[in-house]
C-alpha cells in the first residue's frame, strides 16, 4: 500500500459492493493477549482439532483395512473412535455452525445453504449478507461512499472459543467454515467456507480460448472468453469486480498480452509489468493483479494462477478465480486484520476463496479428471504448508485446522472408485482411480504430524462434518409439489419454462421449495404472497410429510426419502422463527435436483444425474454420518457434532454455554 495515496482499505471498507463485501470489522489486533492471565489449572491444556470435511466412516475403514492408512490404524488401536451424528440437513454450513455453537439450528439460525427473505421473496446465502453503503457523494462519474457498507455474519448463538478468549487462552482457527466474516476478538483466524473471491462469487474461473466452437459466455462459476490471434499475439481482458465507485458501476478490468511461440508449445504472458514464460500443461504460482477503481486513489488487490491447457492449434488458457490477495486483503480474511499478511509472508500466497478446488471447471468439461486432480493437489499442498507452519508455531491453547480436499474430491471423483456408479469409467487413469485414497493418505500424514506434537496435557479430536453417498438420481421436488397440489401454477403448459417461480399462482399456493432440503409454507402474514392461514399450517405440513415419505423412484421402486420433518418439532431455540417448515432427508443415491433449488420446474419428477458432481451429502444424516476420533475415551453413546463444543470447553475446565444443547463426549449419558 503506497503512503502517498488515500488509504485504499479505507475506501474499500466503505463500499460493500467491492468484491464480496468489505466488512468494516474493527479487530482488536493491538490488544492481543494483553489482558492479565487468569489462574486456571487447565490453562496450559493443548487441544488439537483436525476438521476433515467429508471424511466418511466407511471409506476410512476401507482404506485402513487395505493398509493404506497406517497412522489412523495405529491411532485407533490406542484411542477412541465413533461415527459422528451430523445435522439435519447434513449440509456443511449447517453442520459446521452446529459444531461451532454446540447447538441445533434453532440456536445458530443456519438451516440450509439458501435462506429467503419472506417479505421480498428473495433468496440469500445463509451464512452472511452484504449491505451497501447508505450514503454516497457524487463527483462527476464517481460515486464516493460516505457511510460504510458491511458484511454481516448471520450465524448466531455461542462459539466454543469465546470463553477461551475471555480467559486469554490462545486460539487458532484456520479456515473454519461458516465463519465469514471472521469474528472479532482475540482468536487468530483465517476465514474458510463462505469466503468469496474478488468478484463476490464462490469462485469464477475464466477460460480464454481461440477455438471458435467453444460455448462462450458466463456459465455460473466460470466464463469463457474468445480471443483472436494476430501473428500469434493475443490481447486478453480479465474482468475484475464491479466498480462501486463508478456511478454506472462498470466492471473493473485489466488487460494482459500473450505471445505464442509459432513452433513450440510455449507462450509468454505480459501482465501488469510481469513476464511469465509457460509451457503447455504448466501452472503459474499466484500472480498479483490490481484492479483500478478510482484512478490514482483506489484499487483492489487480487491474484490469479494461469494454466496453459493448449498452445497449438488453438490457445486455451485457464485463469483461476480471482482470489483476494492475502498480502493486500481488501476483505476481512483474517483476525487480526493483518494476520493473512503475516501468514502469506511466511508460506507465500494461498487460495483465500472458501472452497478452492475448481469443481465447476470439471463439471463444465473445462478440466479433465486429471487436470482437476492436479489443481486439487496444489490446493492441498498449499494447505499442508500452512499446516506445517501453524503446527510448528503452536504451543498451547486451541488449534483448529480445516482441510477441504477430501470433501471436494469426494464430490467429483468418488465415482472413479465405485464400479456400480453410473459415471464410473473403467479406463480412467490410475491416479484418478486412486484420487480419494491419495487425499485420505494425506490426512494420515497430517494425523501423524499432529500426534507427534502432543504431550500428556494434549487432547486431539479428528472429526468430519458428514460422510458421503453416491448421487445418481435427481428429485425435481418443485415439480412434485405442483403435481401434488402444494404449489399452484398459473399455466400448466408454461410453468416448466420458469426461471424463478415465474408461473407460481401465489394466491392458491400452499407451500414451495427453496434451498437444498427446505420447504416453506406460504404462510399468511409471513410470506410476501402468503395465502395459508396460521391454523392451517400444521395440517399442510403433516400432509406434505406424509406424501413425501411415499415417493418412490419409478426406475427402481425404491423410496426417495428416509424422512421429512416438521422443523418446529425437531429444532428449538431463539432462531426457530426463521426456520423452514419442512426439512427433507433423502435416501442414499438421491438429492434435490439443481433446478428445484431456486424455483425451476423440469418436466420429469426423478431423473438421472449426469454431472460429474456425482456424490453428495445433502441427504438424511443417517446416510452420511461423519467420523470422530479422540485421544481420550469417548464415553457418550452416539456422539454428535454439537457435543464437541461442550467437550472442548470441558478440556479447558469451562462449562458449556447455556444455549449449547450438546453434551460432553467424556461423560456417559
Amino acid at each position, binding site marked *: 500500500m503506497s503512503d502517498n495515496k488515500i488509504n485504499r482499505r479505507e475506501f474499500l471498507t466503505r463500499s*460493500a*459492493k467491492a468484491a*464480496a*463485501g468489505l466488512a468494516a470489522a474493527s479487530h482488536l489486533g493491538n490488544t492481543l493477549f494483553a489482558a492479565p492471565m487468569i489462574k486456571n489449572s487447565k490453562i496450559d491444556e493443548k487441544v488439537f482439532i483436525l476438521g476433515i470435511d467429508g471424511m466418511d466412516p466407511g471409506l476410512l475403514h476401507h482404506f485402513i483395512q487395505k493398509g493404506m492408512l497406517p497412522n489412523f490404524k495405529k491411532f485407533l488401536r490406542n484411542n477412541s473412535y465413533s461415527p459422528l451424528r451430523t445435522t439435519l440437513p447434513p449440509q456443511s454450513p449447517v453442520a459446521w455452525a452446529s459444531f461451532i455453537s454446540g447447538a441445533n439450528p434453532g440456536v445458530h439460525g443456519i438451516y440450509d*445453504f*439458501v435462506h429467503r427473505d419472506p417479505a421480498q421473496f*428473495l*433468496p*440469500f*446465502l445463509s451464512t452472511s*449478507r*452484504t449491505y*451497501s453503503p447508505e450514503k*454516497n*457523494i*457524487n*463527483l462527476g462519474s464517481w460515486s464516493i461512499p460516505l457511510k460504510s457498507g458491511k458484511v454481516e455474519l448471520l450465524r448466531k448463538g455461542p462459539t466454543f472459543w469465546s470463553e477461551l478468549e475471555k480467559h486469554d487462552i490462545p486460539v487458532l482457527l484456520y479456515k473454519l467454515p461458516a465463519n465469514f466474516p471472521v469474528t472479532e476478538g482475540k482468536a487468530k483466524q483465517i476465514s474458510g467456507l463462505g469466503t*468469496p*473471491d474478488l468478484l*463476490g*462469487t*464462490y*469462485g*469464477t474461473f475464466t477460460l480464454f480460448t481461440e477455438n471458435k466452437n467453444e460455448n462462450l459466455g458466463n*456459465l*455460473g*462459476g466460470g466464463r469463457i472468453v474468445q480471443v483472436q490471434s494476430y501473428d500469434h499475439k493475443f490481447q486478453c481482458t480479465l474482468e475484475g469486480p*464491479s466498480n462501486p465507485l463508478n*456511478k454506472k*458501476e462498470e466492471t473493473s478490468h485489466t488487460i494482459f498480452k500473450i505471445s505464442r511461440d509459432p513452433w513450440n508449445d510455449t507462450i509468454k504472458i505480459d501482465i501488469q509489468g510481469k513476464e511469465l514464460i509457460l509451457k503447455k500443461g504448466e501452472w503459474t504460482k499466484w500472480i498479483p493483479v490490481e484492479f483500478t477503481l478510482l484512478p490514482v486513489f483506489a484499487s483492489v488487490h487480487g491474484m490469479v494462477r494461469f494454466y496453459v491447457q493448449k498452445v497449438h492449434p488453438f490457445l486455451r488458457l485457464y485463469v483461476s*478465480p480471482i482470489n483476494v490477495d492475502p498480502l493486500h486483503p481488501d476483505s476481512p480474511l483474517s483476525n487480526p486484520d493483518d494476520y493473512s499478511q503475516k501468514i502469506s509472508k511466511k508460506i507465500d500466497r494461498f487460495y483465500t476463496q*472458501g*472452497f478452492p478446488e475448481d*469443481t*465447476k471447471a470439471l*463439471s*463444465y468439461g473445462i478440466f479433465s479428471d486429471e487436470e482437476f486432480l492436479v489443481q486439487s493437489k496444489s490446493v492441498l499442498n498449499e494447505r499442508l504448508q500452512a499446516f506445517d507452519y501453524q503446527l510448528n508455531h503452536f504451543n498451547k491453547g486451541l488449534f483448529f485446522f480445516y482441510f477441504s480436499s477430501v470433501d*471436494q474430491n469426494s*464430490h467429483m471423483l468418488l465415482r472413479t472408485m465405485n464400479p456400480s456408479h453410473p459415471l464410473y469409467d473403467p479406463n480412467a487413469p490410475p491416479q484418478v482411480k486412486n484420487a480419494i485414497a491419495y487425499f485420505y493418505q494425506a490426512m494420515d500424514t497430517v494425523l501423524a504430524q499432529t500426534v507427534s506434537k502432543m504431550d500428556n496435557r494434549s487432547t486431539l479430536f479428528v472429526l468430519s462434518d458428514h460422510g458421503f453417498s453416491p448421487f445418481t438420481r435427481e428429485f425435481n421436488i418443485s415439480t412434485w409439489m405442483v403435481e401434488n397440489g402444494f404449489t399452484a401454477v398459473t399455466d400448466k403448459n408454461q410453468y416448466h419454462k420458469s426461471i*424463478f417461480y415465474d408461473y407460481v399462482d401465489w394466491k392458491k399456493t400452499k407451500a414451495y421449495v427453496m434451498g*437444498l432440503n427446505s420447504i416453506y409454507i406460504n404462510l399468511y402474514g409471513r410470506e410476501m404472497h402468503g395465502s395459508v392461514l396460521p391454523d392451517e399450517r400444521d395440517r399442510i405440513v403433516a400432509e406434505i410429510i406424509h406424501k413425501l415419505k411415499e415417493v418412490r423412484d419409478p426406475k427402481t421402486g425404491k423410496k426417495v426419502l428416509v424422512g421429512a420433518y416438521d422443523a418446529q418439532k425437531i429444532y428449538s431455540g431463539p432462531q426457530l422463527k426463521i426456520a423452514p417448515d419442512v426439512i427433507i432427508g433423502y435416501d442414499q443415491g438421491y438429492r434435490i435436483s*439443481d*433446478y428445484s*433449488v*431456486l424455483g425451476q420446474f423440469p418436466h420429469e419428477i426423478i431423473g438421472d444425474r449426469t*454431472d460429474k*458432481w456425482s456424490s453428495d451429502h*445433502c441427504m438424511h444424516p443417517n446416510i452420511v454420518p461423519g467420523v470422530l476420533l479422540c485421544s481420550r475415551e469417548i464415553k457418550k453413546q452416539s456422539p454428535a457434532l454439537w457435543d464437541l463444543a461442550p467437550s472442548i470447553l470441558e478440556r479447558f475446565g469451562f462449562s458449556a454455554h447455556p444455549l449449547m444443547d450438546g453434551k460432553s463426549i467424556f461423560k456417559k449419558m
Partner: protein
Amino acid sequence: MAVKKIKIQKELLDKANKYYQTAGYSSVEEFISHILEKEFNKIEDGDDSLDAVKKRLQGLGYIS
C-alpha cells in the same frame, strides 16, 4: 429514450428538490432516476440478488 410520467407524493418531491444538488445531481429527474436504478440493481445485480445467489451456489458446485 422514451419518457413517462409517474405520480409521487408532494413531500417526497419537495425533499428531492431540496437535496438533489447536494447529492451531486444536475436535476431532480436524474436524482430520482438514479435512486430507482440503484434499487433495481440491488434486485437484479446486487450482492444478494437472485443472480448473485445462483452464482455463489454454482461456484460452490451444489447447482450447475
